[in-house]
């Protein structure tokens, strides 16, 4: 049973960490960080929530249920940004706007396709980590499977007696 205090503190921990992960993602082009590390930070925040919640609640979390979709959406974004330039005859992965030209920006966030590419990687990492979390919190059926297969081999008893 989860302590009540931890549950109440969860939003106060998860939300700032998510904001920090977005900061790592969008400031990556000028400093430390990239889509991958930003994705892992965001995944850690959401996994913290998964750990705090009860198993059934964690299974019902929207981020956990949608995780595979998020990962596939990220892959689509990455593939589209990588392959789209081929359509108008440019080499693979030539990001728009052109190097040297000034990109439109929203505060520190420069809007060019390299950021879009990084965002795709961010989504893939978050989706992958949360899908893995879903495998680690099995439904009760798979848990019975594990105990059943475990009960079968009583082999290494002899070694214990010798020790």
């Amino acid at each position, binding site marked *: 049973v989860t302590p009540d205090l931890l549950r109440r503190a969860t939003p106060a921990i998860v939300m700032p960490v998510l904001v920090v992960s977005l900061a790592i993602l969008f400031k990556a082009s000028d400093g*430390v960080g990239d889509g991958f590390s930003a994705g*892992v*930070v965001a995944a850690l925040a959401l996994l913290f929530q998964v750990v705090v919640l009860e198993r059934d609640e964690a299974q019902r979390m929207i981020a956990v249920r949608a995780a595979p979709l998020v990962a596939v959406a990220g*892959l689509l974004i990455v593939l589209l940004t990588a392959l789209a330039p081929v359509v108008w005859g440019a080499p693979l992965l030539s990001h728009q706007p052109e*190097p040297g030209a000034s990109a439109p920006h929203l505060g520190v966030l*420069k809007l060019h396709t390299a950021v879009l590419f990084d965002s795709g990687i961010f989504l893939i990492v978050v989706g992958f*980590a949360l899908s893995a979390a879903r495998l680690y919190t099995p439904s009760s059926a798979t848990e019975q499977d*594990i105990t059943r297969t475990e009960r079968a081999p009583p082999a290494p008893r002899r070694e214990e007696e010798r*020790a």
Partner: protein
Amino acid sequence: MVPVSLLLGLALLSGDAGALFNPGPLGRSELPQAAALGIVLIAIVTVVLARNHLAQILALSCAEYALATVYAFRGAPDLALVAVVVATLSTLFLVALVALFPHRVLDRQEREPRGKRRGLQEVAVGVLVGGFSFAVVWASLSWKEGDVKLARTYMELAPTAHAGDAVTAILSDFRGLDTMAEVSVLIIALLGIGALMRARRQR
């Protein structure tokens, strides 16, 4: 691992080995790195000697964090950040993995006597791979400033990719195709794991 070690070993032996293995004296400013590497060494020995699974996982993550400190000291903040977050995530997943096993299995495995006898083959492979990995790391420590032309080129070219940060530019632009293939492999692995788990659940 064995063929790679043999090839690298041949390459090292055929080259001018004298200049390669001279890392120079240990400066005062490098002492924190040496201390962090000492922590890594202690943690790895703990991983090998400890019997408790949780203790092993914690010692392993200790080694990873100490290595991240070394990267930070070597002037690679991007790598240090990735190392820290990955160490945290992998620790969490390892603990979750151990928690999936029933207590009895874990207890039995912890009480099992340690395997005393090692085959000659295992020892030979260990010495070969370990020795040549050590040689390669040692050689890379003795690089001089002037040897890293590629790094300087990347730093100079980074602004042409809208990035002030060379690492970001490499990942999303210079070697973007590489990144694209890697994430595709990640998704394929995820699909494979999902399919395996579903097959198991239906059985």
